Structures are given as C-alpha cells and as structure tokens.
C-alpha cells in the first residue's frame, strides 16, 4: 500500500508532520474510490454493505439456478455430485451469511443512526472494519472455487462428514475460516450498533420512542452478540480437529458428533431470527406509512420482538428431532418451538390491524410488505408443523423443510428487505425508483417465488430428500420439480427487472423529495440523500413517530390534521434542493470523524491469517503466513489506536501537538464544504481550533457522536 494517491497541496504538506498517525498520512479525498475505501461514514458503509451483499445475492442466485437446472428432470446431468454438493453448500452459506445478514447490516448502518437522530455510529472506524472483514470473508470463501474446490459439507457442516477423514480437501477449511472472519465482522458490528442505540439517541428519544426498525436492529444485534461466539467455538473445535489432530468429533476416540449439532444449532436457531427480525422491522415501518395509520400496538410489537429473541434460544433441538435424543428432550423442544408462534402471531395480527381501516396506497414497498405478511405466515405455519416432532421425523431433511425455510427466508426476509429497499431508496440515493417497473418486479417475484417453493412442500411430503444431486423417475417427482425450476427462472427475471429499475432510476435521476411518502420517522426530516453530517441540528424528540407529529395533530375523532406550519423537515417538505446551501453553512461547524486506512489494513490481516491456516494443514510452513496476517492485523489496530478520530482527546498534549496542523484540514475534508470547494481547506484551518469538539455548539447534544477515543 502506498501513501496517498493525489499529491497533497503544498499547504497541507507544510503543516502536516510526516511521522504522525503511524505509517500513512491520513486520507483526505472527499470523493472518488479512495474516499469510499477510507470512509468511516455510516451511510457510505451502509451502501457498501448493500452493494456487496447484492452482488453476493446474484452469486447465490446463480448457484440456486444451477441447482434447479440439475433437478429440473430426473437423473439430471448439469452438475455432477461433487459440483452439486459444492453449489448447494455455497448457496446456503452465501444466502445466509453473505446476503441476508449483510443486507440487514446495510440498513442497520444507513437507517438506524438516522432514525435515532445520531450523526454516526458509536465507533465509526470499527464500523468500517466490520465491512472490510465481511467483504474479505466473502471473497475468501469464494476464492475456494479457484483454489481446488469449494466447501461441500452443507451450510451446517455436520461433523464427522466435515472432519479431515471424510473431507480431506481444503473446501471445508475455507468454510471454517471464512465463517470465522464473517463472525468477527458481525460481532464487532453488533457491539457497535448496540452501543449506538443505547447511548446515542437524540434527546428525548426514549427507548419506547425509538422507531420499530431500530428496535428490531437492537434485538437482532443482541442475538448476534450472543449467538456468534457459539459458532465461533464450534468452528474452532472443528479446525482443531482438522489442523491439529484433536478428537472433538472423532467417534473412534469417543468424540460425539452430536456436540457439533448442538453448538451449531444453539447458534443456528437464533441466527434465523437474526435474519428475520430486521425484515420484520422494515415491514413495520412500511405498513403504517402506506396505511396512514400508526403501527398498531407499538409496545406489543416491541415486546413480541424481545420475546421472539428470548424464546429463540430455547428451541434449537427442533433441528435434531431425528437424532434420537429421547422423548423428554424432544417433547420439551417441540413445545418450546410451537409457542414461538404466539409472539410471531401477535406481530402478524398487529400488522394486519395496522392496515385495517387505513388508507392503503399499494406502492411497491407496500406490496412487498403485504406479500411478506402472507408469505411469511405460510413459512411460519410449516414451521409449526415441523415443531410437531413426530411428524418432523417424516419431514426433516426433505424438501418440505426446504420449502419452509425458503418461505421464511425468501418469503420473509427477502420480501421484507425488498420492501425496505423500495421504501428507503429515495432517501439513500435521492432518486425515485420507477413504480411500474416496481410492480412488475413485485408480481414476477411473487409468482416466481410461489412457483419455485410452493411445490417443494409437496415434493418433500412425497418423499424427496434434500441435498440429493439426482433422483430417479421411479419416485414420481418430475412434475413439481420442473414447476419449481420454472419458478426459479421467473424469480431470476424479476431480479433482472429490479436491476433494470435501478439502472433506469440512475439514468433518469428523478429527484426525490426529502419526504416522498409522507413518512413518520426522523430520517425523512432531512434532505434526500442526507448530508454528510445527517442532522444540521440534532432533533429533540417528543413522541414516537416524531416526524409525523411535527406534520400532523389528531383531531377529536382521532383523525390526522395537517399542522399549518410544519417546523419538522429540515429538508422542507417537497422541495428537495432548496436547502442545500443552507446546509453547507451549517455543516461547516460540524465535526465528523475523519476517514482512515487502518480499518481496511487491520481487516486485511484476517484473510491472510485464514489462508495461512488453510494451507498450514498441508504444509506446516504456511503457518508463518498466519503470523504475517496477525502482524498486519495488529499493526493496523495499533496504528488505528494511535490515530485520533476527528476529535482528538482534549487533554492529550502529545496528540494535539502532533495533529494540530492536520485536524482542521480533516474537518474540512470531511465536511460538505470540501465537496464543492477544495480551496476552502486553508481557510478552514484557522477557524477551527484543534480539539474544537467541545466548543462546537451543535455537538454535545445527546445525539452527538461521542469521541471514539482508544476504542478497540
């Protein structure tokens, strides 16, 4: 890695001590590739997450299409057994860890701080680190295709099939270390979001005034926080078996393969709620807006979310009903599983009640949200039939399960996320997506989805096991398999429509107003797209649905009445650009964290270590590479710790001296002024004393970003 790409202005050179901030001079470019690579802005990181995850979605989707092609007819010949096993393993792993989780993370990143009225997350650089770790983890995993074979043990990698005796290749190693990297990424970001939500809400925003999507983010983050270490240990045990000859899953030495299943599913079940809760949050935002009614029973929605989060920890054995754990355990977990339907049902009915007697505008996001209710319910109901454990002895490991989880994952999580994408697109990109194409997108999506996965219920009950690369005509399964394949390609068409819609909106640039949907939460009170610093002035919150209450009051009959002079939207109501300059003025004073290389550097150490571990197994010398990776990681972390965030600690003489020449430049670089006028930099410098954070009047409100200090 070199130092900076663009030559700094002489002025900057003169005042910036060379040796500060460790190895590299601080990045300053406000735009262009490097500004994205070094960004610590939660909004940009959110976009990076979204784009990356979408690309992985295409990869996972193409894998799905391959699976469906192979299965379209009996005795298919598109993929061999080996390729098929690799493809379904990568499909499941991709969709879960590289698509739905990071897509949710994209919204956590982008929307949550806006919803709670914060300027950024608690640890902006850590946030960038999470993203890079996620990206590298995904690339690492996919590099296995080029390096001798992808993992082929299924997305839950049951031992001992994944032990070295039965999977001597490197595929499983890639899977193990890839997931470890992704686990680090998720855990770190979960901590970040939790702290952000607990600590950085705008003044007046009590927890029970927090928008429901942020609530679901919070619960999801807690689930990640507590679930990830479990799979971390499981993966470590497996890698000790594989790399160092330990016996954890070696039956010959007395090891019990069921241990793996327990650890995996103790993680795995909370994981499925990690996947669904954010989508539920998005749907809960969309329905009220397009029904012109508040969310029905907000407190109950919050508490049922918490209840799902808690109960989700007590049901994991439902993935192990065929293991033979004895009637007591099976009964206990059958019942605990069934009763998760109760808090989930509450949500379903409250959503319907939200739309009931509302004024429904069936825009694309609304269609996806209502589709979510309908389709997720189907998946939930098949879940309950699984929970009836005696019959699950017939259903488990068949396409009936595959149907169940696609109805909750695709019919649930992805429908919800699509609702979220259509809903928030104008806010994020400042342009509107086309509604007609959106509706086409929805209907092909909806029909294709049901064609693809509806028949799988039948296939499963008719005795089609999952994870088979081929099946014989004698089983009588051809018709519905063909239907399912047709459905999969219908979805592919729908995805193309979606991509076309994006491309078109990018070309047409139909400017989005600040509040195109007449929405309820704070992110709609600022311009679209939001300025770098989010809120020129941190809002003070008086109620749930704060923004709505700035626009409307209720008359005696409980009907909304528009307030004559809405003081709410900074962005003005329907005029997207009237405020731009005004904001730039205000933006000058706002002190945002500066970009940094180090999260990227530190995260880069992870895949290096991982490659070392993979190849260390076959040649001991490769463990040197692990050390190299660790050095990169530690060096990155060290430089990071030494580099102040934009706001240096007020009382740290050394640092202030070292950076006094640089900091103001950074403020300008980060601030919107620099976007338009690079020459402002020197002018800025004088006006902004180093460590001016405490003097900044707009800072220090409850929602101001706390200094990052020497965080991890």
């Amino acid at each position, binding site marked *: 890695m070199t130092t900076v790409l663009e030559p700094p202005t002489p002025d900057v050179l003169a005042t910036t001590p060379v040796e500060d901030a460790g190895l590299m001079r601080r990045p300053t470019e406000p735009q262009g590739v490097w500004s994205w690579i070094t960004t610590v802005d939660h909004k940009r990181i959110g976009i990076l997450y979204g784009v990356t995850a979408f690309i992985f979605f295409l990869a996972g989707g193409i894998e799905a299409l391959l699976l469906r092609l192979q299965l379209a007819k009996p005795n298919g010949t598109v993929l061999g057994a080996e390729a098929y096993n690799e493809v379904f393993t990568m499909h499941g792993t991709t969709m879960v860890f590289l698509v739905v989780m990071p897509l949710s993370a994209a919204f956590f990143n982008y929307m949550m701080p806006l919803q709670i009225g914060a300027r950024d997350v608690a640890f902006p650089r850590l946030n960038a680190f999470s993203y890079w770790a996620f990206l590298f983890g995904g690339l690492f995993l996919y590099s296995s295709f080029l390096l001798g074979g992808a993992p082929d043990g299924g997305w839950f990698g049951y031992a001992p099939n994944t032990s070295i005796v039965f999977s001597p290749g490197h595929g499983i190693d890639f899977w193990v270390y890839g997931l470890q990297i992704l686990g680090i990424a998720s855990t770190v970001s979960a901590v970040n979001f939790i702290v952000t939500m607990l600590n950085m809400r705008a003044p007046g925003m009590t927890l029970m005034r927090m928008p429901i999507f942020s609530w679901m983010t919070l619960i999801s983050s807690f689930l990640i926080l507590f679930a990830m270490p479990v799979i971390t240990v499981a993966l470590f045990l497996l890698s000790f078996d594989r790399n160092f000859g330990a016996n954890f899953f070696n039956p010959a030495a007395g090891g019990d393969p069921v241990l793996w299943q327990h650890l995996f599913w103790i993680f795995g079940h909370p994981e499925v709620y990690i996947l669904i809760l954010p989508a539920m949050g998005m749907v809960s935002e969309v329905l009220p807006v397009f*029904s012109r*009614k508040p969310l*029905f029973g907000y407190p109950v929605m919050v508490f049922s979310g918490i209840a799902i989060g808690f109960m989700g920890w007590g049901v994991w054995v439902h993935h192990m009903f065929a293991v*033979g754990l004895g009637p007591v355990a099976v009964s206990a977990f059958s019942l605990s599983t069934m009763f998760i*339907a109760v808090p989930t049902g509450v949500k379903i009915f409250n959503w319907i009640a939200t739309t009931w*007697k509302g004024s*429904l505008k069936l825009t694309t996001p609304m269609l996806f949200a209502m589709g979510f209710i309908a389709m997720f319910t189907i998946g939930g109901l098949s879940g309950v039939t699984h929970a009836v454990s005696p019959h699950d002895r*017939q259903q488990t490991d068949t396409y009936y399960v595959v149907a169940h989880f696609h109805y909750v994952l695709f019919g649930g999580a992805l429908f919800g996320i699509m609702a979220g994408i259509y809903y928030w697109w104008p806010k994020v990109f400042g342009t509107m997506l086309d509604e007609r194409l959106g509706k086409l997108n929805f209907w092909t999506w909806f*029909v294709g989805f049901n064609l693809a996965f*509806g028949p799988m219920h039948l296939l499963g009950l008719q005795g089609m096991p999952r994870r088979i690369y081929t099946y014989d005509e004698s089983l009588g399964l051809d018709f519905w398999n063909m239907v399912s394949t047709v459905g999969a390609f219908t979805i592919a068409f729908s995805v193309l429509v979606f991509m076309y819609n994006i491309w078109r909106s990018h070309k047409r640039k139909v400017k989005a107003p600040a509040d195109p949907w007449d929405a309820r939460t704070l992110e709609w009170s600022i311009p679209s797209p939001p300025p770098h610093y989010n809120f020129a002035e941190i809002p003070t919150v008086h109620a749930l649905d704060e923004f709505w209450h700035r626009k409307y009051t209720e008359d005696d009959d409980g009907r909304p009445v528009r307030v004559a002079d809405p003081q709410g939207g900074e962005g003005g109501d329907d005029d997207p650009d009237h405020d731009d300059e005004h904001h730039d003025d205000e933006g000058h004073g706002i002190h945002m964290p500066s970009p940094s290389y180090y999260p990227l550097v530190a995260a880069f150490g992870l895949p290096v270590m991982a490659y070392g571990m993979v190849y260390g197994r076959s040649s001991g010398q490769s463990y040197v590479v692990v050390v190299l990776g660790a050095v990169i990681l530690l060096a990155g972390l060290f430089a990071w710790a030494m580099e102040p965030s934009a706001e240096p600690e007020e009382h740290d003489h050394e640092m202030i001296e070292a950076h006094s020449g640089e900091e103001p430049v950074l403020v300008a670089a980060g601030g919107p002024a620099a976007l338009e006028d690079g020459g402002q930099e020197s002018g800025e410098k004088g006006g902004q004393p180093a460590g001016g954070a405490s003097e900044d009047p707009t800072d220090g409100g409850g929602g101001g970003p706390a200094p990052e200090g020497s965080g991890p």
Partner: protein
Amino acid sequence: MARAGRLRVLWTTAAAGLLLVACGNQELPQNTLDPEGPVARKLDNLIDPVFVVAGLVFVLVQGLVLYSALRFRRRSDDEAPRQVHGNAKLELGWTVAPALILLVVSVATVGTIADINRRAEGADVVNVNVIGHQWWWEFEYPGRGVVTANELHIPAGRPVALKLTSEDVIHSFWPPKLAGKLDVIPGRENFMTVEADEPGTYFGQCAEFCGLSHADMGLRVVAHTSGDFDEWVRTNAAPAERPNEGEAGEGAALFRQKGCASCHTVNGYSAGELGPDLTHLQQRKVFAGAAFELNEQNLRVWLRDPPEEKPGSLMPNLELSEDEITKLIAYLETLK
C-alpha cells in the same frame, strides 16, 4: 383485482396438488402421507389434524390480508383514517387464541412422542442391526446368522426392532411408508421400530447428507409373509457354495486374486469387511445402495468402474478386463 385473480389460480393449483398427495398413488413410492404400516400411520394420524389447523390459520391470515388490501385501498389523497394506536383487548385476544390452539396440538404431540418411543418387545419381534456405510446399508440379523446389504427383509405384520449404528459419518434411515427417519450416528446406538401391514417392497433412502453419493444411498424394505420370511432367513444363513470349475470357478479364483476377497465377505470363502457381504448377492434385487437393479448388464458396468457409476464409491476401479469381468460375474451369479 388482478392480484385476486392471480392468487386464485395459485391457490387452486396448490389445492389440486394437495389432492394429488392425499390420493397417494402407486407412482409415489416414498409418499409420507400414505403410510403402509402402523408406525408411519401414527405420525400421519397426528399430522392430518395439524394440517387442518394450519390450513385454517392460513385461510384466516390470507383472507384478512387480501380483504384489507382490497377493501381499504386509498381512493383519494385526502383520506384521513382514524389513528388507532392499538387495542389491548384485541391484542390479548390474538395472543391467547393461538396459545390455546397450540396447547391442544402440544398435548397430542407429546402423546405421540411417548407412543413412538416405546421399544417393540415380545416374542414375535425381529431384531436387526442396521449399519450405515458411505454409501450403502448393512443389515445384520443377530442370532440368525444372516448379513445382507441394502435390502431389509422383514416379516409383514410383525414389529421389527432396529438398532442403528454407523461405521463412518451420520446417515439417516428412512423408509417413508413404514416409519419416520432416525439418524444413524457413529459412536451412538439408536433404536426404532418398523412394521409393514402387507407383504411388498417399500422404498427408502438415506436422509442425512453423508457426502458425495448421499443421493445414491437408497434402500428397500421387503416384507414377506411369515413363512416366506423364515424361508428367506434359512437360505441366507447358509454359507455359499464354491464353484470349482468353468467360468464361475475361474471367477472365484479371480475374486481372490483381484482383491475382492479383501473387502467382501462370502461366507465360507472370504471375510472382507469394507464392502457389502456378497454371500447371497443374488437374493437381492438391487445393489450398491439400491442405485442399480441387480442384473448382469449392471454388474458389468459396475465392475468396470464403480466410482464412475456412483460418485465417490469406496469400491475402487480395479482395472478389470472384460474377460475377467465376465468370469467374476459368472461367479457372482452362483451366490444365490
């Protein structure tokens, strides 16, 4: 309206499909909703009413969503619906109602769990040890001196107690029309009961992903009348006769020379452990995890290159000449 129309098409398709399932015809040999033994029937008797409950909830929710979408469409931009923030009574109602429904379901569930976990006992119970291998099944009849592969022979109308263990990875034993599946786990012993109402051949398959040829790890359960079963046992307990001359005799010699004997047991001739017992190979209709029908042609193809025919198969390609194969097959055909 378009939505309603399209939905109707979908639901009718689904309903037609369900009907097809319910009829459970001969063409679906692994249909779980068409049990042909008491164990599978217990599961089916439990799931049928649960499907009905689920169906009702399904209709209710879809109905409400559709109704709401159609009835409450915005007609003018000035509409100002009443701002209802919640309703404690209603919410309590739809918390309690599902809980009550589930209470009923759970009582039935626990009852059935207790029921199917009882081990079969009594004089007429047949015991069989099921051993899972990558990617074939081994069946041992303790006390009867019979070992066979991929085809489980049982007497109809009598409970058969299976003890399941695995030699390598986790498999799952699943004859859908006779019983639900139970995992076959190395280092553990699992017990299940199967029983067939009538004589006949029942399909089954390994249901836990177990590596490359998981898809080719099928099985058959062959139920006989009691008399036929005893006859079958008698035949299969006897050692194989060893041909000394002709092609078969040469084949028997090749069986040793080519190393077949080191992997395959032929009672009275060889004692290999790695592959299926071939003593009475010809008693079976299928081989190699029920992936192939047993006939000369298939055996020939198999012996040419097993891993080619069945990915990953642990029986190696022994580079046999056609002539050797012919002789080996001649020998294998004497294993009756």
